[in-house]
């Protein structure tokens, strides 16, 4: 285990500044999200002043359209928006990777059935599909998590299936089959360890995608519902300020952008390292 720690430390020391910047950003967001109630000066839905107060010492980022403290809502937004996106990504991964792995290992009809189903689901643009389903089932948070997780799991399925296929055709998998090993053993011991790197990278990319989709839905007023503090809806609620030359509404949008940039930087470096693409 110390060898692993040492090699990851060595890897870290070689990382470019962009990846380090990304890691710092991710860490900062995680800390903010976890300790949000401790950090935030005011409550999440507490009305502290009049509407649209400018930046001041009392309200560092002013107040929003209902007179709630912008900074506090930004901090709670880290918990809500990032937390929901993270949970959705984990769910999408559970569904997609198990299905993808099964399809690649079993092949035959299982693979055909799952792949065609995914083809059809991917034939509809995800945001549009999500809008349709949410119209029907209603825009609750749980519904949104489920809908986006299922839609996004199709992409996880495609990737997992593709990388697992590359491993399945290897002789060592054939050797395990010929030894008489069961399906689960082959998936767990022969295939999974060899596809962890691309899956980890994909997790980062999918998180970004889910995060952006959820923010987009919230921005459209169809995602996280008020009074929950959420970056997407904060942009929407305060958008009018822009026309008065006030950049406050862009700040939650920038917060979203900064996190996705950070994750993308780390993933980009990680992919570069694990794919052996040196220069």
């Amino acid at each position, binding site marked *: 285990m110390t060898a692993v720690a040492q090699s990851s430390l060595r890897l870290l020391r070689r990382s470019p500044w962009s990846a380090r910047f990304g890691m710092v950003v991710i860490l900062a967001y995680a800390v903010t999200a976890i300790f949000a109630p401790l950090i935030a000066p005011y409550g999440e839905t507490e009305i502290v002043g009049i509407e649209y107060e400018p930046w001041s010492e009392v309200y560092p980022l002013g107040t929003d359209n209902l007179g709630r403290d912008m900074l506090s809502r930004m901090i709670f937004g880290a918990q809500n928006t990032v937390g929901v996106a993270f949970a959705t990504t984990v769910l999408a991964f559970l569904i997609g990777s198990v299905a993808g792995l099964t399809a690649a290992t079993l092949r035959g009809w299982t693979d055909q059935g799952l792949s065609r189903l995914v083809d059809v689901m991917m034939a509809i643009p995800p945001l549009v599909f999500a809008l349709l389903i949410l119209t029907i089932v209603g825009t609750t948070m749980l519904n949104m998590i489920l809908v986006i997780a299922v839609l996004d799991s199709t992409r996880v399925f495609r990737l997992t299936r593709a990388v697992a296929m590359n491993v399945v055709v*290897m*002789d*060592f998998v*054939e*050797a395990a*089959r*010929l*030894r*008489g*090993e069961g399906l689960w053993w082959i998936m767990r*011991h*022969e295939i999974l*360890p*060899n596809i962890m790197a691309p899956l980890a990278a994909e997790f980062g990319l999918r998180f970004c995608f889910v995060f952006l989709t959820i923010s987009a839905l919230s921005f459209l007023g169809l995602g996280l519902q008020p009074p929950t503090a959420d970056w997407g809806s904060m942009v929407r609620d305060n958008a009018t300020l822009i026309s008065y030359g006030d950049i406050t509404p862009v700040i939650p949008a920038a917060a979203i952008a900064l996190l996705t940039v950070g994750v993308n930087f780390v993933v980009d470096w990680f992919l570069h390292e694990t794919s052996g693409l*040196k*220069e």
Partner: protein
Amino acid sequence: MSAQNEPDTGGDDLLLRIRGLKIEGRTEEGWSEIVHGVDLDLRRGEVLGLIGESGAGKSTIGLAAMGFARDGCRLSAGTIEFDGRELRAAPETARRKLRGNRIAYVAQSAAAAFNPAHRLMDQYCEGPVQHGVMGRAEAESDAIQLFERIRLPDPETIGFRYPHQVSGGQLQRAMTAMAMACRPDLIVFDEPTTALDVTTQIEVLAAIRDAVQQFGTAAIYITHDLAVVAQMADRIMVLRHGLLVEEGDTRSLLSDPQEDYTRELLQIREFQVDERRRPADAAPVLEMRGVTAGYGAATILHDVSFQIHKKRTVAVVGESGSGKSTAARVITGLLPPTAGEVLYNGEALPPRFDRRTKDQLRRLQMIYQMADTALNPKQRVRDVIGRPLEFYLGLTGAQKRERVRALLEMIELEPDTFIDRLPGELSGGQKQRICIARALAAEPEVILCDEVTSALDPLVAEGILKLLDRLQDEFDLSYMFITHDLATVRAIADEVVVMHRGKVVESGPKSEMFTPPHHDYTDLLLSSVPEMDPDWLDRLLAERAELARQGRVLKAADN
């Protein structure tokens, strides 16, 4: 800097002069040296053979002669003088203008080195036109003449085909023609026949030699096969680990090698086990009886039958596409036959492997050609060998550990050093040994060896063959040896089965198979194996010409 200043090293006809060449490759830890200071001289019109195993640096040196280093490599020291001009320090533009124009390159796999998006003629003409040697029309008519000279079929039209429409042997000759396009002073041949079947190889060797002699072109011929280089080169340099081992005139180097390593290389083909005759009344351990099999509508195997007896080695020989690997897939149960059956000790095995019992699976083990892909890169040696022990024999804990160590000793790898390694930390030969140990751990009776030595260097391959031979005696194993290499057959087989286009052409004891007369195909196959004798190719071509006059044409189908 120029050749005139160095009159003592070979006079005016010296074309290439390399001194103290060092080449570095990029690794995880930084730059590490691959070639450690090599000198090389080449006169005009001379053919120099570079020989060595993988990792000897021969390709890297060959490319360095063009002032070129692959991505991730760099020419770190030394001088490369081509026709009096130093290339290592020269600007890239200057080097670029020499490449393809005065120094040309022929790659190992022509099928991969021709661009799939363009016709052969467009690729041929690109060099001469871009270097301003001749115009497009002139280049085209020149190409047709060259195609004719190297005896490509339909020289008038073959250039207007795409690479995937032309066979491998023909592409390799077309690539030689392309290298000739600007009438270069030097051509670097980088293992040009390694990817070809042995029967196809002859025609390509003949074409290359012909073309080089015709234009008095100097050549560097890179190969790992000493017998091939013996036919092509005037002079040979033996390389190992990026250093020169020995250098000399071809005939004297072959007849009187000075270094131990060269001697070993020459002796490789001498290892041979004594043939054991099939026991008179014993039943075979494994038998294929009237097997017909294929994928979908395509039938690959037609009514194939052969037997493998206890403690015997049956070599199944044939070229790519002969169906020998498909036969192995039928035996292992990966491909159920459409007709016929596989018998084990007289009893029919279930056609599909997942219908076979654990014990049936255990008795029949397999070793693969590419040890790289046969070992899970994430599993340590102890787990690779330990798994069958646990799975088949129920060994766990200390018992399992002791057995793994014993198996490692059996395959001549020090247990303490190797037990915790990952496949990435092993050499090619060591990996193949681990695969053998994994098969052995199941305590099998029959082992299918699918081209187990063809991806290995000759000396390493010989070690594997000797190991397999020893294990056969110790454990009473039967081997089915799938191979295209007749030297391997000669070394290890008791019986030989020759396959061609999915049928068994001929079969019998080894001694009979290596004595004429034969089926045409067997003759073609046997006579195509290069020999160390530098006159072998001339003699063979003369013999075949003579046979052709008598109406018996021995020639690979795709030539």
